[in-house]
């Protein structure tokens, strides 16, 4: 295993890091033997490290099944990491006991992907938004209602809607309720798990703009999960690209989009259909499917589909190393110990 996370990039080093994820790994039992012991594992998240600054929006991108949600769930304590650390606001959450950890729960909130499944259909939305405040005792009982109204306005819902049930709302409105619920406890970090992917095109912009506004207004920090680079581009400051449980590339937005280093990122970018005829890019069509995360082969996870694959890719795991300033990439193409490649020279320029 490569040791690629403990040195924070220089850009971050001096700054106030809110969340520091180190070597986070999550395995799920895929097959069990007679006595219920796992015999093979889904490597859902495999040695993932990244940091998020206060007030920053960090985008996490990758195709379906690459482990984005699993990362998010581990952050909000819905799943226990198999190994690795989550250092939040200077404290190691993974080392805490459940009771201790509970007090940090409210600082990290989650916005779900599916606006239809994430609101209890049998509760009025007023109660849904009030619930976290009551559960965490952060607002006196008699102030709850006023605060609910405030939150509703914040997310662009009229306060008379308080007494309605979720099914009376459209997807976009529900997602806004979900946002209000997350805001209710004044969290420091909000994990947005594909908050717009289930929404209509015309509604997506509403939610994205809203998240932007709120970030501005309350100085929130986001972990923004998405599977398309286009959405992330609009919201995040820095972006991490995941593939099959591993981070392939982390870079500030501008650098990543202007000059993607990892072949996977390049393919991902090119696969996004362009609306503008002017900006027709060269298309890279990847062959094959994402392989199964159950007991993945050694070496680079992307090796099987890579169009720039080298001999070593199949057996050795590339390190996530800083190739350009603040721009790190896990790819053998940029391995200084290997013979120089065209890409390496280009990146060096």
């Amino acid at each position, binding site marked *: 295993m490569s040791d690629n996370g403990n040195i924070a990039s220089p850009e971050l080093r001096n700054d106030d890091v809110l969340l520091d994820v180190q070597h986070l790994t999550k395995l799920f039992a895929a097959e*069990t033997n*007679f006595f*219920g012991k796992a015999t093979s594992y889904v490597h859902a998240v495999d040695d993932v490290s990244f940091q998020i600054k206060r007030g920053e929006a960090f985008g996490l991108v990758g195709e379906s099944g690459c482990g984005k949600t699993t990362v998010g769930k581990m952050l909000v304590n819905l799943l226990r990491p198999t190994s690795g650390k989550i250092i939040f606001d200077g404290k190691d959450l993974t080392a805490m006991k459940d009771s201790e950890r509970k007090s940090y729960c409210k600082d990290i909130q989650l916005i779900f992907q599916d606006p239809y499944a994430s609101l209890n259909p049998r509760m009025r939305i007023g109660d849904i938004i009030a619930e976290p405040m009551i559960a965490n005792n952060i607002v006196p009982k008699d102030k709850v209602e006023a605060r609910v109204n405030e939150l509703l306005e914040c997310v662009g819902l009229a306060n008379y809607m308080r007494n309605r049930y979720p099914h009376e709302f459209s997807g976009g409105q529900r997602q806004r309720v979900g946002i209000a619920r997350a805001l209710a406890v004044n969290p420091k970090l909000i994990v947005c798990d594909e908050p717009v992917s289930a929404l209509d095109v015309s509604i997506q912009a509403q939610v994205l703009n809203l998240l932007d506004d709120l970030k501005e207004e309350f100085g929130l920090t986001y972990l923004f999960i998405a599977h398309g680079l286009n959405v992330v581009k609009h919201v995040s400051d820095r972006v991490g690209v995941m593939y099959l449980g591993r981070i392939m590339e982390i870079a500030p937005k501008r650098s990543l989009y202007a000059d993607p280093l990892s072949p996977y990122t390049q393919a991902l970018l090119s696969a996004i259909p362009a609306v503008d005829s002017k900006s027709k890019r060269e298309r890279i069509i990847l062959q094959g499917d994402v392989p199964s995360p159950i007991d993945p082969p050694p070496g680079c996870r992307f090796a099987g589909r890579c169009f720039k694959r080298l001999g070593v890719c199949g057996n050795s795991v590339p390190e996530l190393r800083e190739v350009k300033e603040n721009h790190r990439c896990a790819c053998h193409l940029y391995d200084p110990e290997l013979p120089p490649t065209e890409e390496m020279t280009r990146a060096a320029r």
Partner: protein
Amino acid sequence: MLKYILKRILMVIPVLLGVTIIIFFITRVLASDPAPVVLGEHATAEAMAAWRADYGLDDPIWMQYVNFLVSAIQGDLGTSYYTHTPVASELAARFPATAELALCAIIVASICGIALGVLAAVKKNKLADNASMVLALIGVSMPVFWSGILLILLFSATLHILPSSGRVTPLLQPTGGTGFFIFDTIAKGDFEALGDVLVHLVLPTVTLSLYSMAIITRMTRSSMLETLNADYIRTARAKGLAKRSVNVKHALRNAMLPVSTVIGLQLGSLLGGALLTETVFAWPGIGKFAVDCVLKSDFPVVQGVVLLVAVIFVFMNLLVDIIYAWLDPRIKYGAKEEG
């Protein structure tokens, strides 16, 4: 798959142990004293005490249980207090009757239930749907003994077209063989007896199958409605398949998955439900016998019956699961066990 079956068979053991404990507790601790019934009118208190001692009923309860378990594992279910016959042979003599009836009933119930259910689903909200659902519901709503007696009244007492009692006219009864008369008569080529066996089966089968039929109809309908809405049905229709072939080949096969589970469960409950039907139709099975034995506090037999039914029920479920796996290629047992 084999591993899965093995695992399931092992899981059966604690269930059966539990069943014996429950029934042991109910019979030994709660039920009334069998001695007065067994020994008859003239028995004195001393005779009864002696008898209890003979049968180990004054041992501590756990010891009785251990004794029972030890001999049960050796295949000895004990001897009936009342008839002094080994429980195993009492059950062997009666079980085929119940099994034959239950099998016929489940077959009739499945065929009619599935047919009605499919009809109802395909003609959703039309007359045929409402009619078959009401029919099914009436089946579920009538007390079995009531409908049985009414059927006897109509077909036997009034129209004289069907016999009201027993499995077969005694002189035609096939001897030896499996005890499954349909099978035995066919094996012997005795078609007069086969006819006789079949006419005797009609009323009890109908009565017994009504309840299960209703359940299967309901299940088939809802399962069928669900599959008819599935995407692959649209795909099949987009291929240009005829409606019939879509309904049968694509919808029904998938709809059968949950239905098969229900049918399996029904067979278990039919064994229990046969009890009232057997009473009404003088059917020589274990159902009526079991009730009598409960009422006579004939503990060894009650234990035996319950154990037998539990074994059948449990293995029925196992069988259903295996059939399910066979019907549904998606299920690869052993791979997914919720943990």
